[in-house]
């Protein structure tokens, strides 16, 4: 019985093909002997004259050709499953006993496709005939289909139903697929499945009314397919780009239609499709075919929602036929494409300007009419074959989905030969041309010869030209006459730096311009060694160690001195200067030195002029920033080249190519050359297809990535796209996601008045983010990098899949953009505070008054400590309070910084600051009192001291033994120089008991403070582990001891 379904899938083909039926039968008859997977043998149906569905199938098969085996498996699997379902459900389809069918199918899965339609076909009476008739005339048929869509009479409905049968189901399938992407969790799955089921049912009913069995089964089948073929689904996803999803939705709507439901209403209930509604009759209309370039010269503006096409699709359609699509209305606009007058800006403006309105049907008519009636059938096969393939590819990709599962193998058989035929044709065609083409790479062959050939950046070219021209006069002669006048005149720089993305012709410009000026260009690039030559740069060529650059700029045979003998002058082109690294030690510095003494102009070229390495170089160069040429500029040039190479190319195809490669002409040419190997006609769709997968990698910022993941269409992204996005910065993206996921109103939630569902989603997203953290620990701590995909899934993809939707603002005054992850900042503050607390802790421990851990200090002690420190200041008279507090601090050997730390740590937002209510006078009195005491204070704590002039901080903290200050200790004015050996120093400090001297009072403290600042700076520049903040604290805490070590001519007391 499963064959029934397949017959449904076959139907469009039969209908359209008409004559193909017998041949299919023939194939079926002949086929059974062949093994299941013998694809190429199944050539029979390929003779079907270019009808759309056949071509679609061909497309499908072509697409899946490499996967045939797997797909066949899937098909088998799915069909068996279908069988199960059907036997329980299907009441009408008893024409064929399932057992018999099963046998057949067990033998040969794909044969069914051909056998069953035949069997099934017979009971079907008038409508197919009608359709067959219709099918006999290609043009006519299209029209009729359209009519049908308009007038859903019963028979028409059936015709349509059948015609679209496969598509509807496939679409539903496609839909599901797009959803399942969402992170593969059950809920989403469910959601996705429900609609497809619904759609299937809708169809089933419709069909049932017409007396056709298998409708229900059909719906089910779709679901069944969804259920099983994870792989299958993924395959499809890979193949059909974003289009699949879009189409899929349309298809569902169509599926529901025959059932007499609200048209296309099925989808909207559970999914909010954002700002723009879906086309109401999505995917229901046959997209017409027309003559190529029938819209050439016309400019369209699309407004509002169209009847059946997504805007993107409409744009593609127009471009395919040579039209242009612009964003806003101008006088040049030929038509405003709109199906409903929503009275927006565009339509108003169009009315003002008198731009005619065009409905979608109108557009279709236009395209259709353009098609020459005489168009021979053969033309389909040969010439426009590729075009059609493409078309059906973009358009009916979902069809492929289910059809592939069912009659894939057969279709494949059909299409493969035809394709190969075509290919051999085209290669034959091309062979002729190839001969005269030579083997030169196009990028070399069409490298601009004169500056005017350079695409875009003409002003830069001119600037470079002027600069080179005036160089000699400016630097050489003036340099000769008056030496002091080198850099004086204005902003004249001795070198020039061209910057810009790769492939836009920087090197070419430099070469061409210098060539034009008759300068000999010497190119040095990353492949040459460009290291620092010798410290004495003037040595030049004579020095044994001098490098090539030096030689070049000072070589007598090249420099200006030869100018007099009328030999060509030289210009040095330093390519890829930002690539100077590793091997080219000191390269940039040397280059700068070279520039200073150079006697020939130097042109430096780089990609990123803001690179850290080039920072110093930038000052010596005239900066010329090359921009990407516009797509029009590039398109023109590409057209030219294509013409020269004998390729027929559409202009908008070339522009599309230009756009896809992001302005990289070199890459565009490479693509073009590659394409020229297989085809002589390059159409818009070719470009779309080819470059969809291989579009140039772009740098995406983490914000863009997060925007895309969370975006309204985030659910439609493919899995690999999502992984790419979240992997674009595996550290930052999860953080930004974590920061912002709360702000999104998930579109998957749908109607949710109470917010329970959203909260539920939030909880799951949060859980997943937490999981991601755990995985991350494994990665970082145990270096399990193989888990990085899991981490990215848990920390980015799952939350984004759950939460994607519209962003909301949670706080008043917040901008509705994704915030940068707050974690990093908070983490650094936390660790800073932890260090400070650790300082306090060690001070307290050193005081020997308490023995506690840090946690207890923070959790239990802190409140009281703070009270003891601040309360007296608030309540008691100044003198008394200060004395008491200082005493208390001394007991626990707390320093002033510790005091501040304690205050800082007990500040909570929204709570009163513990320091409130303390008079500034009291504060300063406290500081004063503390400092006064510090001279006689016992150093109790161990601290890190950085000695100025030393590269690293001391290895060990300077430790002090806690003993009552013994004043009687003979003061041995230490002579140990502070700059002394690090090892020795720390050792002595360790062994010696460092007791601060009380001899150097105030003055020392002052200088100490300064030292503190200096220390801080040192710390920063050294990048040592100790915090910057620590340092001043240190030296002060230590009082004069700190100074003893750190101060100049430090005196250490023993």
């Amino acid at each position, binding site marked *: 019985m499963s064959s029934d379904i397949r017959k449904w899938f076959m139907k469009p083909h039969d209908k359209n093909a008409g004559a193909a039926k017998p041949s299919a039968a023939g194939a079926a008859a002949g086929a059974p002997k062949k093994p299941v997977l013998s694809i190429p043998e199944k050539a029979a149906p390929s003779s079907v004259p270019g009808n759309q569905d056949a071509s679609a199938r061909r497309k499908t098969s072509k697409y899946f050709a490499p996967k045939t085996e797997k797909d066949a498996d899937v098909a088998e699997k799915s069909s068996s499953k279908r069988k199960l379902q059907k036997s329980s459900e299907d009441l009408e389809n008893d024409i064929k006993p399932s057992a018999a069918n099963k046998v057949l199918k067990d033998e040969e899965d794909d044969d069914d496709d051909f056998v069953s339609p035949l069997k099934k076909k017979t009971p079907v009476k008038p409508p197919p005939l009608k359709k067959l008739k219709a099918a006999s005339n290609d043009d006519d048929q299209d029209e009729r289909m359209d009519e049908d869509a308009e007038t859903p009479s019963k028979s028409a409905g059936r015709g349509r139903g059948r015609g679209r049968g496969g598509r509807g189901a496939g679409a539903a399938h496609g839909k599901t697929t797009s959803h399942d992407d969402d992170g593969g969790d059950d809920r989403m799955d469910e959601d996705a499945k429900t609609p497809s089921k619904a759609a299937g049912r809708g169809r089933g009913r419709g069909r049932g009314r017409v007396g056709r069995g298998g409708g229900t089964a059909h719906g089910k089948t779709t679901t069944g397919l969804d259920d099983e073929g994870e792989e299958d689904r993924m395959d499809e996803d890979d193949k059909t780009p974003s289009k699949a999803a879009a189409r899929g939705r349309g298809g569902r709507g169509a599926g529901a239609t025959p059932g007499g439901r609200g048209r296309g209403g099925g989808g909207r209930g559970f999914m909010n499709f954002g700002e723009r509604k879906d086309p109401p009759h999505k995917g229901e209309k046959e997209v017409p075919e027309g003559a190529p370039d029938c819209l050439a010269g016309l400019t369209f503006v699309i407004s509002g929602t169209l009847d059946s096409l997504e805007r993107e699709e409409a744009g593609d359609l127009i471009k395919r036929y040579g039209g242009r699509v612009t964003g806003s209305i101008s006088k040049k606009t030929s038509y405003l494409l709109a199906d409903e007058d929503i009275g927006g800006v565009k339509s108003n403006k169009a009315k003002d300007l008198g731009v005619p309105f065009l409905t979608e049907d109108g557009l279709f008519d236009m395209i259709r009419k353009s098609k020459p009636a005489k168009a021979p059938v053969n033309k389909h096969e040969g010439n426009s074959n590729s075009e059609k393939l493409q078309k059906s590819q973009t358009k009916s990709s979902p069809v492929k989905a289910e059809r592939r599962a069912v009659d894939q193998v057969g279709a494949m058989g059909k299409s493969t030969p035809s394709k190969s035929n075509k290919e051999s044709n085209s290669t034959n065609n091309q062979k002729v041309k190839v001969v005269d083409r030579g083997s030169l790479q196009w990028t070399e062959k069409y490298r601009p010869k004169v500056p005017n050939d350079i695409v875009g950046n003409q002003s830069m070219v001119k600037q470079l030209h002027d600069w080179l021209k005036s160089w000699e006069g400016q630097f050489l002669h003036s340099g000769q006459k008056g030496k002091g006048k080198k850099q004086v005149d204005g902003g004249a720089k001795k070198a020039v730096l061209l910057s810009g993305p790769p492939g836009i012709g920087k090197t070419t410009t430099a070469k061409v311009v210098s060539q034009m000026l008759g300068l000999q260009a010497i190119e040095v690039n990353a492949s040459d060694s460009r290291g620092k030559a010798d410290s004495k740069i003037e040595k030049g060529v004579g020095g044994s160690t001098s490098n090539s650059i030096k030689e070049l700029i000072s070589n007598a045979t090249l420099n200006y001195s030869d100018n007099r003998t009328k030999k060509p002058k030289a210009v040095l082109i330093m390519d890829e200067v930002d690539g100077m690294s590793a091997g080219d030690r000191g390269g940039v510095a040397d280059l700068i030195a070279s520039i200073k003494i150079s006697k020939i102009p130097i042109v430096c070229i780089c990609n990123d002029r803001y690179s850290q390495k080039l920072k110093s170089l930038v000052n010596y160069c005239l900066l010329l920033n090359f921009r990407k040429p516009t797509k029009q500029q590039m398109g023109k040039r590409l057209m030219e080249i294509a013409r020269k190479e004998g390729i027929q190319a559409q202009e908008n195809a070339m522009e599309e190519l230009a756009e896809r490669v992001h302005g990289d002409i070199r890459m565009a040419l490479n693509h073009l050359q590659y394409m020229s190997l297989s085809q002589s006609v390059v159409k818009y769709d070719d470009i779309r297809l080819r470059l969809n997968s291989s579009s140039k990698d772009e740098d995406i910022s983490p914000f863009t990535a997060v925007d895309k993941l969370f975006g309204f269409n985030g659910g439609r992204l493919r899995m690999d796209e999502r992984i790419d996005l979240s992997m674009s910065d595996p550290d930052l993206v999860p953080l930004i996601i*974590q920061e912002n996921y*709360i*702000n999104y109103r998930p579109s998957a939630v749908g109607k949710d008045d109470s*917010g*329970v569902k959203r*909260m*539920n989603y*939030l*909880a799951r997203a*949060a*859980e997943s*983010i*937490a999981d*991601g*953290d*755990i995985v*991350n*620990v494994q990665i970082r*701590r145990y270096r399990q990098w193989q888990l990085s995909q899991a981490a990215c899934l848990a920390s980015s993809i799952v939350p984004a899949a759950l939460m994607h939707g519209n962003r909301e603002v*949670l*706080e008043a005054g917040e901008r509705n953009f994704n915030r940068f992850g707050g*974690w990093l900042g908070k*983490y650094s503050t*936390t660790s800073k*505070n*932890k260090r400070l607390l650790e300082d306090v802790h*060690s001070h307290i*421990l*050193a005081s*020997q*008054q*308490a023995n*506690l*851990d*840090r*946690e*207890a200090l*923070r*959790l*239990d*002690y*802190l*409140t*009281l*400590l703070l*009270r*003891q420190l601040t309360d007296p200041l608030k309540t008691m008279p100044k003198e008394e309070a200060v004395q008491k507090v200082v005493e208390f601090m001394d*007991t*626990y050997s707390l320093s002033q910084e510790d005091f501040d730390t304690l205050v800082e740590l*007990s500040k*909570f*937002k929204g*709570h009163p600051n513990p320091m409130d209510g303390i008079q500034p006078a009291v504060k300063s009195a406290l500081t004063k009192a503390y400092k006064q005491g510090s001279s006689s204070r016992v150093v109790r704590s*161990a601290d890190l001291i950085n000695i100025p002039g030393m590269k690293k901080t001391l290895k*060990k*903290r300077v430790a*002090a*033994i*806690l*003993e009552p200050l013994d004043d009687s200790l003979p003061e041995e004015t230490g002579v140990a120089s502070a700059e002394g050996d690090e090892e020795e120093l720390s050792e002595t400090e360790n062994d010696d008991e460092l007791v601060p001297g009380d001899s150097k009072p105030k003055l020392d403290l002052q200088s100490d403070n300064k030292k503190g600042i200096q220390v801080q700076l040192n710390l920063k520049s050294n990048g040592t582990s100790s915090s910057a903040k620590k340092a001043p604290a240190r030296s002060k805490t230590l009082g004069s001891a700190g100074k003893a070590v750190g101060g100049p001519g430090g005196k250490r007391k023993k």
Partner: protein
Amino acid sequence: MLWVDKHRPKTLDKVIVHEQVAQNLKKFVAEQDCPHLLFYGPPGSGKKTLIMALIKQMFGAGVDKVKMENKTWKIDTGTRTFDLELAMLSSSHHVEMNPSDAGFQDRYVVQEVIKEMAKSRPIDAKGKRAFKVLVLNEVDKLSREAQHSLRRTMEKYSASCRLILCCNSSSKVTEAVRSRCLNVRVNAPTEDQIVQVLEFIGKKENLQLPFGFAARIAAQSNRNLRRAILFFETCKVQQYPFSANQVAPPLDWEQYVSEIATEILSEQSPKRLYSVRQKFYELLVNCIPPESILKKLLTELMKKLDSDLKHEVCHWAAHYEHKMRLGSKAIFHLEAFVAKFMSIYKEFLCAAFG
């Protein structure tokens, strides 16, 4: 000086709360030797006090001469070398350190540092103990690897070195380590004992305690003696003579957490979740350990929660605490708990009240 420290018993004889334990420990002093010890018990029960008293009695006043040092060790793991810095408090007889401070490198602390310390015998035996005492704090926070390394060290250097381990929960210390030690359980003092201590302090400080005042503080302290004494002193700072129904002001962070709890219970929305996150950050930035936050938050939530939900919420709190320990970014887990709670609670409210 704070009363907690001022009235801390310096010798085993003066211990009030864990007299029994103190008596046993005194026997070691008499024997001039002791096995490895593992002290465990809740915070504020007196572990450290006991340890310090024990050491002091064993070695005499010498242990008071301590120096605080931040030592750096060069660790060579074979594949790379790096510096490890650790603060340690040492006297000539004992060394105290907190190896878990080294984070996930704690293994090297145990392998290298402790070995190095343990290897050298103290020179100035002078008829005194021929061993050093190594006090390791927060052993339960050591990673598994570190604990495994620890057990070998314990056996190998037992001749020259005694380890005294100190932790809150013995269940987080591996079996192997536990079996090598004499385990000393230090219970949280009962409220009666706390009252006893408070009264003792009150007497020493010449304070008049109103009837029931000490008991109230004891109840508030949650059987944490340290906290009780701190509360006691806070009350004193706040107001003296004590009034009859005076209570100590809550700790700053506890108060903040209970505010969060109130917020969560009053509204469950993404907006609220966001503001709760900000508050969590505030707590974390102020060095409040996330575990304490979660625990306190749960306690606060429990107070106002319907009994139907209690079980489930506890379950999730435990779940997220576990995950928090596995992970490294505590805020994620705290937030996940709150989001989960909000989700559950909201669902519950909607089901109950429509």
